[in-house]
């Protein structure tokens, strides 16, 4: 099922083109939106929320037109901004009730859902204390809760793991998976860390400089982005040529004895081990590596 469709969507700010001729379809589930800072992710989200009109092109979200149905869209869509956005001198409960009403929920329903939502994101007794005293992780949870409090059909999460420690990052990623799988709410999550998104996203969209680089389901992306780093003690040339005979694409590394193998086939690691054992040389390193985001940008001229 498609939640968001854009057709030739373009937005310029004076001489700067933030989003350029973007045509993409996003399915339901968790969609990762990857791009470096300034790649146009936030501009895209603001256009989809109906907050800024596109310079040209069209976009529909949950069947609503972004140009004309902004109010309708914002009733059923949640948004967690990247920036600090919480009032410090009210409690999380008070704040969530207010945000629920701002989304159009009646007073009593707002109170009920505020308590429910805070429980789901993992805030319990502390929810009665002013937000100013919360840790970064707790504040991120409140930011997530305010995006969910009105039971949206779709949420935009802008860099939700920013500023979190590794444990907090894992918790947040777990919560995001839960939003999609348990709550049945579609998620569009942005990050500049592809590895992070690969763990939770069903579909990854890569944009750079406002231009679509790639839109694939995560299974494809992982496969495409894998490579194998190999380092042997001796006879690296022989190992490389044997691998080339097997049809693998091999690139010599900078250090003598090390090279990289494009992971086009899941049997390749076993083949490397077999060749090394047969030659009787030492295997120093056999490491599966994901491409960094920058490499994806360099290699992907084609979109699928």
């Amino acid at each position, binding site marked *: 099922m498609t939640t968001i469709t854009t057709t030739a969507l373009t937005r310029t700010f004076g001489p700067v083109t933030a989003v350029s001729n973007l045509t993409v379809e996003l399915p339901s589930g968790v969609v990762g939106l990857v791009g470096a800072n300034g790649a146009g992710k936030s501009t895209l989200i603001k256009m989809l929320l109906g*907050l800024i009109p596109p310079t040209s092109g069209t976009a529909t979200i949950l069947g609503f037109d972004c140009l004309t149905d902004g109010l309708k869209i914002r009733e059923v869509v949640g948004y967690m901004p990247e920036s*600090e956005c919480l009032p410090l001198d009210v409690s999380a409960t008070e704040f969530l009730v207010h945000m629920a009403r701002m989304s159009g929920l009646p007073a009593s329903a707002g109170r009920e859902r505020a308590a*429910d939502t805070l429980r789901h994101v993992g805030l319990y007794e502390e929810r009665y204390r002013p937000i100013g005293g919360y840790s970064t992780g707790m504040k991120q949870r409140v930011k997530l809760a305010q995006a969910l409090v009105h039971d949206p059909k779709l949420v935009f999460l802008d860099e939700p793991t920013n500023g979190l420690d590794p444990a907090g990052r894992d918790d947040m990623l777990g919560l995001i998976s839960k939003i999609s799988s348990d709550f*049945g709410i579609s998620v569009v999550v942005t990050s500049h860390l592809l590895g992070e998104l690969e763990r939770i996203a069903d579909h990854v969209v890569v944009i750079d400089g406002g231009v679509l680089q790639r839109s694939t389901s995560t299974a494809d992306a992982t496969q495409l982005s894998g490579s194998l780093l190999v380092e042997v003690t001796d006879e690296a040339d022989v190992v490389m040529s044997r691998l080339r005979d097997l049809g693998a694409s091999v690139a010599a590394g900078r250090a003598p004895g090390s090279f990289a193998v494009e992971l086009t086939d899941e049997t390749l690691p076993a083949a490397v081990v077999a060749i090394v054992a047969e030659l009787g040389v030492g295997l120093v390193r056999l490491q599966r590596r994901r491409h960094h985001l920058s490499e994806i940008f360099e290699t992907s001229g084609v979109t699928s």
Partner: protein
Amino acid sequence: MTTPNDSVIHDIGFRHYDGPRLGRGWAFRSLLLETLRGAFGLGRPAKVKIMPWVLIGLFTVPAIVIVAVVILTGGQELPLTYTQYPIAMSLLVSLFLAGRAPYAVSRDLRDGIMPLYLSRPIKRQDYVYAKLFGLAIAVWIFIATPVTVLLIGALLAKFPVRDQLLGWVGGMLMAAVLALLITSIALTLASFTKRRGLGVAAVLATLVLLSGFVSVLISVVTMQRSGATGTYFAVLDPYLLVDGLSAAWLGVDPQNDFAQPDGALGTLVFTAALVVIVAGMVAILLRRFRKVGGV
């Protein structure tokens, strides 16, 4: 509020909401009400409540004293009328507003909350109007409290009921005009800073200094030139402007004689000044918030 008890919380999973979504009007009302509650520190920690309630107390005590004196000494009329009271006590009104206007907008700017509001089913200008009317209603309630104490005292002292009720209604009306006028000015000043302290200083300095400056100006001009030229300068001070409008519209005695508008032309100029100032401030506010929120 929930009360602590021994019951067990069962995890019933995520519940979906399929009730009504009330849309833009309701969201506007909610933001207005939140602003009004915030102005009195309701739903906020105790330290936020202190200033507004201390000021309400200080502002109301003179009214209670006046009422007590009138009842005990058997006076024939209130020494300060319903329209004169807030003008005479203008410093306290300014203090209340100087605290509350930055609380209403500077805090939102500092905390960066605009993106959250903008992602709700409201439009950008709704935020400005909700803040303006929410705070203006708070100021109106602030002024209405002692004015209503005066009415209760007047009725207890068995003054003619009809006259007193009419006077009180006039007082409420002019309180609303004053509230809207000074709130639009204070909110505009406060909207240009994220720092509350700076906002408080700016609002207080503007309202208090303006009063002093305009009074001096009027005395100087009146001394130099005979006639009513001096009274026109009253439009520069919001309190004198409303004082003059009370005299012009309701025919009551102004608190300051030199604020009495000069005939039909004076009334016209005073009324036009009110409209121009409020409209101008709203235009500046709308312009100010056109870019806030990173969009």
